[in-house]
């Protein structure tokens, strides 16, 4: 295992310390509670936005804490959902008297831990609403699965909902926007390699030189199917076609296009993929209104890529464009 780390068991804590040290004006870390909080929290009169999940997906979610996006993030162990105590501490820390909104990714662990946290927070008389993101089209959403995973749209949603919340919108309005964004986004990912969890020391699964996984999640688990290595053009088709179909995007519609690196794929390849995506969308007369190209929701050093398309409109764009100042996303400030 070749990583730039010290002891595996200290990775999460040290990364938090590094984030805090280099972004001291934006965030503070409560090491006792394991929560990353926006420096000026709680912001009175504003819905507090919280998310959380296993570590290993950086910059998500800690890198999205700050003005215009998340008020706090709860980092679990690598690929492990955080515990209710974290969300409860975060809830208290961001409670500005206007309610607190949980952005939860649809994984059993994330859902259950946030659920238990919400139960505890209700006891403290803090009004909680939440959304469970489930944009992954690789998995069938049925009685026969744990439901679709929450992946790329989560990043876009955190920005849009964060932008809305910054205007002092009500908890209901925030919840409504979150539902709308989640309902209009779809994603799919693939991997060229697995990743190595520090505490384990070897890749979670093996892919040989000629194989790739299609329909992956973000926790290093195998995908839906293993297929022979293909060109960027073919891979993009494999990712985008199910998205287009599921989202029923029509000619003339606009999207926010998010080409995401899984952590080990360089920017030049992301742009090759982006070119393929642009060609497909152009061919279908779907306009890219805004874009995000980079490694924002990752799986440690996994080589691979995911694509998210979010059907968009002027209102969503307004909150996408709204100022944001976090370690990983910044504009307008």
């Amino acid at each position: 295992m070749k990583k730039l780390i010290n002891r595996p068991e200290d990775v999460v804590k040290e990364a938090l310390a590094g984030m805090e040290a280099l972004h001291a004006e934006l965030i503070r870390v409560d090491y006792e509670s394991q929560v990353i909080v926006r420096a000026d929290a709680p912001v009175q009169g504003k819905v507090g936005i919280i998310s959380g999940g296993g570590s290993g997906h950086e910059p998500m979610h800690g890198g999205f804490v700050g003005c215009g996006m998340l008020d706090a993030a709860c980092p679990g162990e690598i690929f492990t959902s955080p515990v209710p105590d974290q969300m409860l501490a975060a809830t208290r820390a961001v409670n500005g008297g206007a309610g607190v909104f949980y952005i939860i990714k649809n994984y059993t662990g994330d859902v259950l831990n946030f659920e238990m946290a919400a139960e505890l927070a209700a006891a403290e008389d803090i009004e909680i609403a939440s959304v469970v993101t489930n944009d992954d089209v690789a998995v069938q959403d049925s009685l026969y699965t744990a439901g679709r995973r929450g992946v790329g749209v989560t990043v876009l949603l955190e920005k849009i909902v964060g932008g809305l919340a910054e205007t002092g919108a009500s908890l209901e309005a925030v919840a409504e926007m979150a539902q709308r964004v989640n309902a209009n986004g779809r994603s799919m990912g693939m991997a060229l390699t697995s990743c190595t969890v520090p505490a384990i020391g070897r890749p979670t699964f093996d892919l040989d030189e000629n194989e790739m996984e299609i329909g992956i999640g973000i926790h290093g688990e195998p995908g839906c199917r293993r297929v022979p290595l293909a060109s960027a053009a073919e891979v993009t088709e494999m990712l985008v076609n199910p998205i287009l179909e599921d989202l029923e995007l029509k000619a003339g519609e606009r999207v926010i296009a998010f080409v995401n690196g899984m952590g080990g794929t360089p920017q030049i390849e992301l742009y090759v993929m982006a070119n393929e995506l642009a060609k497909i969308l152009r061919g279908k007369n779907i306009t890219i209104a805004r874009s995000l190209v980079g490694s924002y929701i990752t799986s440690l050093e996994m080589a691979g890529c995911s694509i998210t398309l979010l059907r968009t409109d002027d209102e969503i764009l307004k909150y996408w464009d709204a100022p944001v100042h976090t370690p990983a996303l910044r504009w307008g400030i």
Partner: protein
Amino acid sequence: MPITSEKLIAWLQRVGQVLHEQREYLTQLDAAIGDADHGINMDRGFRAVVEKLPALASADSGTILKTVGTTLVSTVGGASGPLYGTAFLRAGIAMAGKQELQEADVVALLAAMVEGIQARGKARRGEKTMLDALLPALEAARKAEGEGLEMLQVLQACSSAAEAGMKSTIPLLATKGRASYLGARSIGHQDPGATSSTLMLQALVETYR
């Protein structure tokens, strides 16, 4: 002979040991059909549990089990944290005030655990989860207790059923949890949660003897 609080504590210590020893094995199981953290999660959770045991030396079974529950909730994370945590919490509530557990109590304890896991996780038998070990274990314990068998035999029946249930997960298609994302690729692999459940029950037989 009943299970004393002392024995309960000895059991939990043994669970901590076993989950530490089997950490790599549980990791492998969860790597095949998950994100490879179940072994790490359970080891972390029960290490925290074991640290609390000295302070529980004179506590009743209910308190001990509840403490296990809250500790697991606070340290494990993932799916197994809330599930096992709720299981132990409900078991603790069911065993409130009891210093010793009779055979019928053990059945009630297991029933409370299963109810807790079902209430949280909403899974049923056959979905390739820890319930596929714990449901058969409960049923076997209930049957043995109903037949008037003694504690050791009740625990043995329970543990054997869990083991069989654990193995029965191998050919199952996962329809709950992370493994369900893999669809048919989940077939042929033993469920991590069913395995850790079985390890816990096997440890109970071991420490009871």
